[in-house]
């Protein structure tokens, strides 16, 4: 987060957000201020990432706490509509109505985002299809597309109108490496002018894209800060050794045949290596108790 961003009014302001489903607590006391730029949301399955993103996308209300998104209160119907006019959302799982072509579906979504003037809408739909490299498949029925291409159709509708807040739930699922790199380029551009929240399991995406990372576990924010600060938590705690160290918090065999050990104790003959975001994330997951937040 740049200094200028920190001083500007946050795009998203969450205070004490809590949410339960059928008595099961999914989010507890989430406080977040999000500014322009790209924020990565990491966490294991069931951590509450999707629920948090659905609250940001205004499709789900919080049970507790208060939220201001793009300067509006999502609990108020009229203000919620204002938020939605400036929001792009890609859910984790997006189905498509039967019979729609790629162009037809994005065009339909453009109308739902109030692009009423046909010429402007056509240009807008063409632009986002170009951004996700689907121009040549615009006439194809969605059911004939590959999983990655369908994902990009979903992304295209989220990009309509260059929203000020872009909420993406696992956007790189199903994309091949080349497409992921292209997507990163698009999102990097977006992040200059908008707030982009990306929930993912891919730590390399966060490392490549995000300035800031939020780690969520069991509905609680465990870390909120710069990516480099999270990585710094693992500094001097990642070792490359010939075997797995039983004292290590976690270890795994790498492609070179050596073992990557994460922990405080150095295995015998081990070589200290530069930590990655994944190392730091795994370390954080293993060392903090739910409810305790690590200061950035």
């Amino acid at each position, binding site marked *: 987060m740049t200094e200028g961003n920190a001083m500007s009014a946050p795009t998203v302001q969450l205070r004490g957000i809590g949410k339960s489903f059928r008595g099961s607590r999914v989010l507890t006391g989430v406080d977040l201020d999000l500014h322009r730029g790209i924020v990565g949301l990491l966490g294991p399955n069931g951590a509450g990432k999707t629920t948090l993103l659905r609250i940001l*996308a*205004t*499709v789900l209300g919080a049970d507790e706490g208060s939220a201001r998104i793009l300067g509006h209160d999502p609990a108020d*119907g009229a203000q919620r*509509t*204002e938020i*939605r*006019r400036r*929001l792009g*959302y*890609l*859910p984790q*799982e*997006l*189905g*498509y*109505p*039967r*019979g729609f072509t790629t162009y*037809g*579906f994005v*065009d*339909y*979504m*453009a*109308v*739902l*985002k*109030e*692009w*009423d*003037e*046909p010429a*402007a*809408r056509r240009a*807008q739909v063409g*632009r986002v299809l*170009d*951004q*996700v*490299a689907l121009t040549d498949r615009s006439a194809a029925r969605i059911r004939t597309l590959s999983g990655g291409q369908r994902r990009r159709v*979903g992304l295209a*509708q*989220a990009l*309509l*109108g*260059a929203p000020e807040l872009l909420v993406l739930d696992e956007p790189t699922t199903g994309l091949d490496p080349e*497409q992921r790199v*292209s*997507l990163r*380029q*698009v999102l990097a*551009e*977006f992040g200059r*002018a908008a707030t982009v929240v990306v929930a993912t399991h891919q730590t390399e995406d966060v490392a490549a894209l995000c300035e800031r990372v939020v780690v969520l576990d069991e509905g609680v924010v465990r870390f909120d800060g710069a990516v480099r600060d999270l990585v710094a938590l693992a500094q001097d705690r990642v070792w490359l050794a010939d075997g797995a160290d039983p004292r290590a918090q976690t270890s795994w065999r790498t492609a070179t045949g050596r073992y990557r050990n994460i922990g405080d104790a150095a295995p015998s003959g081990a070589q200290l290596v530069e930590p990655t975001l994944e190392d730091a994330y795994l370390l954080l997951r293993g060392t903090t108790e739910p409810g305790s937040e690590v200061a950035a």
Partner: protein
Amino acid sequence: MTTLETRVVPVGGGRATLGQLARIEARRFALHPLLWAGLVLGVVTSAGERGPIELDYQVIPAFFIGVLGLVVANRLTVSTRRSRAVLDAAPVPDTTRTAALCLACLVPATAGLALVLLHRAFVLADPFPGWAYGTYGPVDRVVITMVLPVIACLGAPLLGVAVGRWLRFPGAGLLTVLTLLCWSALASYLPAQNMDAGSLPARVLHMTTPYTAFGTDPGNGTGTLTVVRSYTGSPVWFAVWTLCLSGLVAAAALWWRADVRTRGLLRRAGVVLGVVALVALSLSVATGSHDVHDSSRSGTVPVAPAADGA
């Protein structure tokens, strides 16, 4: 993938959005294979043929366009459930999407009208004799053969939208079709064939349905039309009743996830439509013929209750 262009802000909302959405839904409706199948079957079974007797003609568009239109409308409505996650995050409310689907039901209504007009052209070229219209006068004849079929082609698809919005279980559309067909068949023919058709319960049952028949060929075994049996009730008031039912069904569809203000408007519209519907239903029973008649070249005679059990 390419880089971003400058930020652009959408324009519009409200009626303009509804118009655009209605165009998209109408196009989806018009391109649906089931609608085309219904139109082709309707043309094949009525145009250029004497088909069923003129008083029963409305069954062709009502079944082939109306019932199949119900299925199409239901499928179109249900199909967007898969994208619910992103639809919910769009600024355009669900009510607008439902209204667009309701407006798209003008497509099957137009198809029904086209079928009616095509049939009319054939009838004008080779007119039926006057007795083939039974006891019905000129206005009733127009209503039975040209107005009621179009209302059926509008109302049934509207019911498909409402069912798609409110009933979430699989097969709800099919169940609605079966219910509608059984109800209409029972209400249409039982009173005239198995009950004392002139009795009040029979006349009420005959009219209390979204579709009813106003006449039939009692059959003489020769395959040629020699007698036409006309039923009870007023076709004109029945048309008003079914039109109000269509309006009520549309209001029920629009009620789904509507905001407080819209529900207030719908409530008022529903009360007005409900009152008019009840008045029209009462008048459809109270006016028009109170008895079943058989008409032939030699004249019109009332059919005695349970006289032939035809």
